[in-house]
């Protein structure tokens, strides 16, 4: 239990990288990149967790009455989730352009077209 969350984050990252490297479709590759991104969120939040603590949001609990988890890593992950989605959209826009120019979204065919 002491390292399980970190190992899960490592697993998600490696699996995503494997998918990226072996992908035969650029849209699938963008999906794999989204999986890789989620590994970072799992790692960040795991680092910030504290046993038996609750969220540092004091709208319904009295400050100081319960231990709280680390808000800094949560803030980092939160902004990146939304910004990461727009970056995914940018990559998908690139895929649409590639499909228009070359008529294929298979990375292997693309490199053959160029070379």
């Amino acid at each position, binding site marked *: 239990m002491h390292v399980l969350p970190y190992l899960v984050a490592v697993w998600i990252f490696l699996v995503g990288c494997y998918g990226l490297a072996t992908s035969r479709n650029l849209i699938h590759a963008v999906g794999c990149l989204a999986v890789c991104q989620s590994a970072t969120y799992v790692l960040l939040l795991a680092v910030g967790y504290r046993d038996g603590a*609750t*969220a540092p*949001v004091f*709208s*319904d*609990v009295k400050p100081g009455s319960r231990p709280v988890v680390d808000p800094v890593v949560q803030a980092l992950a939160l902004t990146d989730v939304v910004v990461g989605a727009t970056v995914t959209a940018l990559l998908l826009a690139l895929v649409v352009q590639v499909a228009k120019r070359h008529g294929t979204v298979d990375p292997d065919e693309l490199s053959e077209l160029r070379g």
Partner: protein
Amino acid sequence: MNGWILAAALVLAGGVGATLWGVASGPLRRRVIAQNLTTALACPALLLLAQGYDRPSYVDVALVLALLGPVGTLVFARLLADELTGDPPRAWGATWAVAGLGTVVVAILCAVAAPGRATAKLLVTGVLLIGGNVVASRALAGGFGGVRRG
């Protein structure tokens, strides 16, 4: 020992585990149904967690899931309509069973909470969740006819 969190863990392990298996394999009609049921199961689990951690503000997460989960299923129903019309998914038994689970969870949580705003919020979440999932199921079973381009 916190029974609420235990119940949430059971719903997650049994229910969401099963729908994950459903979305991972089989024909497309089974996968879209499993995706819809994931929402319908995760939302009661989130409500149970909010009660288990004794944090009413966590209900907001369940509320947003109850709103946007069925919208996500509608996205699939709309854009995969061509492939689904030939082989429409029909899983009303599972849909109503999961809707029943959601109803039971919301009813129990309303019963233990002191009547007030929090109860009303729980009820709104429950109505949105169950209505949304039934409508999403209906949309999957041929809600979009004759969309060729648009």
